[in-house]
């Protein structure tokens, strides 16, 4: 079950129909419930905006609690059969496309604590709180089931945003200190859980499941055209700015073959790169309060004039036309 399908099902149980969540995405319920379906980042963020518009406050917490690691199917079982949380972390990073996640984890041990920083995969705007709530609730739901530790809990949560109106839900659901207006979004766990045995560990089986994950990732890539694949990669790594040879290497081609194949498809690396940058810029414009200058640097333009011009020629509109009145209010 892909993530969008999960949200639609969950909202349906709350009496909010699929058509409202999928409004303006160009998607139908039949499409998203197909096993092979993967929403594009654009479709996804449009659906997420609909969801946040219709759902009650704190829906992220609820969605995280309703979720189950086994919804990941074989990938979930690869995680389940790991021998420690660190192994889970490694698999998560390696097969990130299978997580369908909105946030990336960057974790490290600091003295006797484990810090997990949650970073955006693409600009989420006000969906960020939702994504963070969901991740924290998932951690709190899953760890007590898989860890051989009755006393599992989060030590502290630091959040980059202001306390929402429903902050009491955070305190009630997360059971730890929650600090707002911090520099990063961070979950702090007691380091002892890293050494904790997992209930369902089996190295041999984990390897088998991992093999199947490799197969699944491969089949996702095989269905995608080269252009789609490069685009997906660039969206997911919009702040990395790979060069053409680097990108070619990522998709397993020589720079020459890479260039040729894109040319045959009537495209080019530069063209895809521009599209992605402008698309990401659009997300920032619509969903955040960042200034054009800040956005321009974030998406890798060297100066604001070029950026303005590119946006104008791509969309036919001025930057200010994109600012959503709701985002500013």
């Amino acid at each position: 079950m892909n993530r969008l399908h999960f949200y639609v099902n969950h909202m349906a149980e709350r009496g909010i129909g699929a058509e409202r969540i999928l409004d303006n995405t160009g998607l139908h319920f039949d499409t998203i419930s197909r096993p092979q379906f993967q929403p594009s980042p654009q479709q996804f963020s449009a659906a997420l905006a609909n969801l946040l518009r219709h759902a009650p406050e704190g829906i992220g917490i609820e969605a995280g609690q309703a979720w189950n690691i086994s919804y990941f199917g074989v990938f979930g079982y690869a995680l389940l059969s790991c021998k420690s949380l660190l192994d889970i972390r490694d698999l998560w990073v390696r097969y990130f496309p299978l997580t369908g996640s909105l946030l990336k984890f960057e974790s490290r041990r600091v003295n006797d604590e484990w810090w997990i920083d949650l970073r955006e995969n693409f600009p989420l705007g006000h969906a960020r709180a939702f994504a963070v709530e969901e991740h924290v609730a998932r951690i709190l739901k899953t760890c007590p089931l898989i860890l051989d530790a009755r006393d599992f809990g989060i030590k502290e949560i630091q959040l980059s945003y202001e306390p929402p109106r429903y902050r009491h839900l955070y305190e009630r659901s997360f059971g730890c200190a929650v600090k707002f207006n911090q520099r990063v979004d961070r979950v702090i766990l007691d380091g002892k859980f890293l050494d904790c045995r997992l209930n369902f560990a089996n190295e041999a089986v984990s390897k088998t499941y991992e093999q199947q994950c490799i197969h699944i990732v491969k089949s996702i890539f095989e269905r995608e055209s080269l252009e789609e694949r490069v685009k997906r990669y660039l969206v997911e790594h919009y702040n990395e700015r790979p060069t053409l040879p680097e990108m070619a290497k990522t998709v397993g081609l020589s720079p020459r073959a890479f260039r040729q194949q894109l040319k045959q498809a009537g495209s080019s690396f530069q063209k895809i790169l521009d599209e992605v940058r402008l698309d990401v810029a659009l997300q920032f414009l619509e969903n955040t309060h960042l200034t054009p200058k800040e956005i321009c640097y974030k998406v890798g333009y060297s100066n604001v004039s070029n950026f303005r011009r590119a946006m104008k020629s791509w969309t036919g509109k001025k930057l200010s036309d994109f600012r959503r009145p709701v985002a500013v209010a």
Partner: protein
Amino acid sequence: MNRLHFYINYVAERGISAAQVLAATGLDFATVSQPSFLPSPDHFTTAIGNILDLAEPGIGIDMGMAWNISDFGIFGYALLSCERFRDNKTLWSRYFPLTSPLLNWKDRTVGADWWMDINELFPLGRAKAFAIEEHLARYLKMCPVIMPADDFGFREIQLSYEAPPYSHLYEKAFNCAIRFNQKQDRVLLDAKYLHYRLNFPSEDVLKTCEQECLRILTDISTTEPLSQRIKRHLIYNFERNFTLSEMADIIGVSTRSLRRQLQAEGTRYQQLIDEVRLGFALKYLQNTDLTPKEICYRVRYSNVCNFRRAMKAWTGKKLSELRSPSVSQPLTE
């Protein structure tokens, strides 16, 4: 990891070596640790006997508690991925040979009561208490982990044997009414658990796990001789009789080819049946106080004379000579 392999790993941490566990079994550790190896009943009774001689009392409970569902390998994950607890029953009936079992069980529910009768798959002798301790402890360990049932426990345990000297360990571990010297080994549970949703349901995973379980079963059956496979089936279903054509159906070959393959292995179907029955009889003679007459009926010989004659022909010894000295009085020579 088969059950015997698990035992060896467990006692190794307590200073008992693989060689000690496998003494007189004819096995070495390399054989036991092969993925497709399934120990025979004799392997089990001998190895468990060795463990009981060397380990502290109540080791069955400790081993059951040390076990994890993932030690079942892919079969464990199949159980885990079911929708509801009751779905586990189907998987057990299909793939339980993969667990290298010592016991089987029949259950029935009456209202809110869920009774589970536990039977030995083959005569276990003094390994029986061990096997039951292990089985119950595994259950206690597994259930609260696979489903939201923190309160999981037995309501009552009935055991056919006498209270062992370490029966206080039973009370501590099982925390319910325990009655010894009962007619049947059985446990009483709350039937509500059957309807519980498991923690990690996944149709996809269940499907792939089942395929893998089937593959392993097929693997085992293609690497072991047909005669051994038939014997295993006869042992696991000892209370039933199978005609030659029924057995051919189960194995998935024609009666003709079954006959021919067994001939190629130098045996016949009737001979396998006799070997299994006499093997059971020998175990009863050596491990229990049952009279020859009782044993004769248990292994389904129609009269004691035939039974005596068959045992003599098979082992070259008289029944009295086969009694092990620890159980029966030594005979005057």
